[in-house]
Each structure stands twice: as structure tokens, then as C-alpha cells.
């Protein structure tokens, strides 16, 4: 799913690593900037200083735009702030990638979204209220929850979560961890990578290999 070989950027490097089908891995870094840089390198937005990165068998940075986007359509990402589109209400945000790539409709996804929200104890009324909100009115927890719902509807092969548990209380982090775990278990081929700035929740909620970035000292 993900293969890193001697990957290095200006100020950090990472040991060679393979994320296999069905696996969950974590990557810890105290710096949000380093995490963003790592994810951008992974997903082909930034060229690494050294080494190679392949995602779903492709080196995305060197792919043509169309093939890179075709690979990214099978990858689900939850950025730290949820990555929601601010001029779309929550229901359209949830549906966006699935509708764009697979032509999914709101009615086809409604039961999935309702069941997912019920699984964390949200009432139908609260769920309805959430769906019509604009992202700017949501809390950090709600933004990440909506981004997770988006992944649940999209059903990607590879899930990448950036700081999913950071800056949240334990209960909220546990609810998101439960949803991410349910999503991971829905497909035996699926793999997940969690990155985080806080070590404790990553250790508590995610099992599997841990990636550690090593800083490169300036000469």
C-alpha cells in the first residue's frame, strides 16, 4: 500500500518501511509542519530530497496529473482540520468524493451516514442538524467526524489520518478511534496510517508498526 525507501527531506529522514494490506501504522512527529510535509511527499505534492515513495504501487510525484488523481481517488485522507469545503453544507461535503468518483447519490448514502452517527450515540435530530451546517460552524471534533463520514461513504483502499486525536478530549478521541477502527475492519484489504503530534492517544488507539522521523542535523 505504502512503500518508503530511504525517504529524506531537508530536516528529517525516515527508515525504509512497507505498509501492507490490512495493516495499521502510526507516525509520530511533534511538528504539524513536518507532518504536513511528510503527507505532501507521500501523496505526490512535494518532491522528496532523497529516496522514493510509492502509494498503491505508484510514485505519485512522477505520475502524470490524471494518473496521480486516479490513485488519490482510492486514498481517503482526513486532514487535521477535516479538509472540508467551506461553501458546501456538511451533507454535500460527506458525499463529495463518492459522488465525484462513483456518481453516488445522497439517498444511497443516507442510511450509511445515519447508521455511522448512531454508532457513536448521536440522535437522529442531532444528525439532521449536523448535516445542514456549514463547516465554519462546526467544532474541531465535528469537522473530523464529518471527514470520517466522508471516508465511510467513499470506502477508500488506503486511509490516512492527520492528527485525528490531537487537541481533543479523551471521549471525543475514543469516538473517532472507534469509527476509524470500524472503517478499517469493513474491508480486509484496507490499510490505515495515523499521524499525530500527541504520542499518548496514538499509542492508546492505534496498534501496529510505528514510524519515527529522525531529524537531520544541519552541517
Amino acid at each position, binding site marked *: 500500500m505504502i512503500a518508503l525507501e530511504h525517504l529524506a527531506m531537508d530536516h528529517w529522514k525516515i527508515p525504509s518501511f512497507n505498509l501492507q494490506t490490512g495493516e495499521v501504522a502510526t507516525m509520530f512527529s511533534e511538528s504539524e509542519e513536518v507532518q504536513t510535509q511528510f503527507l505532501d511527499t507521500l*501523496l505526490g*505534492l512535494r518532491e522528496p530530497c532523497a529516496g522514493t515513495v510509492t502509494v498503491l504501487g505508484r510514485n505519485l510525484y512522477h505520475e502524470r*496529473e490524471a494518473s496521480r*488523481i*486516479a*490513485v*488519490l*481517488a*482510492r*486514498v481517503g*485522507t482526513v*486532514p487535521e*482540520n477535516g*479538509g*472540508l*469545503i*467551506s*461553501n458546501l453544507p456538511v451533507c454535500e461535503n460527506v458525499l*463529495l*468524493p463518492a*459522488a*465525484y*468518483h462513483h*456518481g453516488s447519490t445522497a439517498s444511497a448514502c443516507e442510511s450509511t451516514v445515519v447508521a455511522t452517527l448512531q454508532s457513536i450515540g448521536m440522535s437522529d435530530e442531532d444528525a439532521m442538524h449536523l448535516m445542514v451546517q456549514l463547516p465554519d460552524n462546526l467544532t474541531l471534533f465535528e469537522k473530523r467526524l464529518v471527514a470520517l463520514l*466522508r471516508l465511510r461513504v*467513499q470506502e477508500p483502499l488506503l486511509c490516512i489520518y492527520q492528527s485525528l486525536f490531537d487537541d481533543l478530549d479523551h471521549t471525543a478521541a475514543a469516538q473517532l478511534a472507534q469509527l476509524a477502527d470500524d472503517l478499517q475492519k469493513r474491508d480486509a484489504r484496507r490499510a490505515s496510517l495515523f499521524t499525530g503530534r500527541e504520542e499518548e492517544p496514538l499509542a492508546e488507539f492505534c496498534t501496529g508498526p510505528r514510524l519515527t522521523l529522525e531529524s537531520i542535523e544541519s552541517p
Partner: protein
Amino acid sequence: MNKAESPTLQSFASHLFKDVIGYGALAASSVAHLGCLRSPVVRRILYKQIYFTGIEALFPVSMAGLLVGLAVISQMSEVLGSGVALNVRAIKLLVVRELGTLLTALIVLARSGSAVASELASMKQRGEIRALYLMGIDPEDYLIVPRVLGVCISVFVLTFYFQFMATIGGMVVASAIYQVSFVNYIAAFSAALDWNAVLVSMAKSILYGGIIASVCCHHGIYAGHAAAMIPRSTETAMIRTLGLLFLTDAAFAILTV
């Protein structure tokens, strides 16, 4: 030229040249990506753009058309008398050939061009364009193509609406004020209508729509990540679009005399 000014002017000219190439590249790329309209998601953005740029502009365009028609006829009547043929000729030259397309483009620029530039710059600043990319959605397909096409369609339709309002509305008001038969106006206008001028007007409206959308999308999507870049990129988009619209209009006026 002052030596100290030289690098600044050179740098400005170089940036301007690069930007103009960028506007052209963005417009050409939008045409090449028209196939993305097969996606219902992209079509919905197109319909929204037509609604915001076209349908919501009907009222201001109606008012501007009526007032311009009235102003043209009353000024011409004041200076050259109230002859029907003269008024019709004034309407044909000023409204159909020149003012219709330019004023419609200016109204669209003021309402939608600034909105497009600031919306895209704001999306860039919030990391939403990166988020789209990470969802496997080409930002050009999702954000640029429907906006460029929507603005072009809207300017095209609004230009004819403006001309209709200016011609008919102006004639109604003028016939009421100057006691000239409205039917005479219509008959004279139909006889005098130059279809070449209509074709030029159609071409201009599509081109102006393309200029507004390309320049505003370019400055929006390539804005920096800082919040201060949102007003700056909007302002640059407005100024550059105005300049390009006037230049293109002057070029059309010279070439089609």
C-alpha cells in the same frame, strides 16, 4: 528613465507578461477540460455559477439597460433632434455595438468577478484546494471549468438581455417623453439592425466572459496562503480585468469600424 525605477518597471512588466500568459493558459486548459462536465457534481457547480452570475444579475442589468437606453435617446434627441432614424442609429451604434457588451461585462465583473477571485483565494488560504486534490478531485475540473463556462454563458445571455432592455425600454420611455410612436421606433430599428454588429457583439460577449473568468480564477487560485493575500489578489484581479476589457474593447472598435 530613472535607474532606480528601471528594475521595478522591468519586474512589473515581466510579472504582467507572465500573468497574461497564465490567463491564456488557464482559459485554454478550461476548454481542454470541458469533458469534466460529464460529472453531475461539476455540472451542479456550473448551474450554481450561472445562477449567481446570470440570474441574480438580471435586476441590475435591467436597470442599467433601461437607464442607458433612456440616456442615449434623450442625449441624442437633445443634441440632434427627436428624429426616429437618428435615435435608432444612436441605439444601434452605442448599445448594440459598444456599450451593451462592455457595460454588461463591467456589471458581471463587479458582482461575480470579485466574488470568484476572493472565494478561490479564500479556499486556497484555508487549504481547501489541497483538500480537493487529496480527495482525488482535480481542482481545475471542480473549481475552474464550471466558473469559466458559467461566467461566459452568463455574460453572453446578459449582454443580449441588456441590449433588449436598452433598446426596447429606451424606446418605450423615449416615445412617452417625445411623443413619437413606439411602433415607428421598432420598425425603424428592425430595418436598421446590422447583423454583423450582432455577431461582433456575440463574439465580444463570449470573449469578455472568458477574460473576466480567467483573470479572476487565475488570481484567486494562485493567491498566496496568507490571509492578507485574499483582498490583494481580488484587487489585482479587478484592475487587470478592467484593463484587459478596455484594451480588448478598443481593439474591437478599431478592427470593426
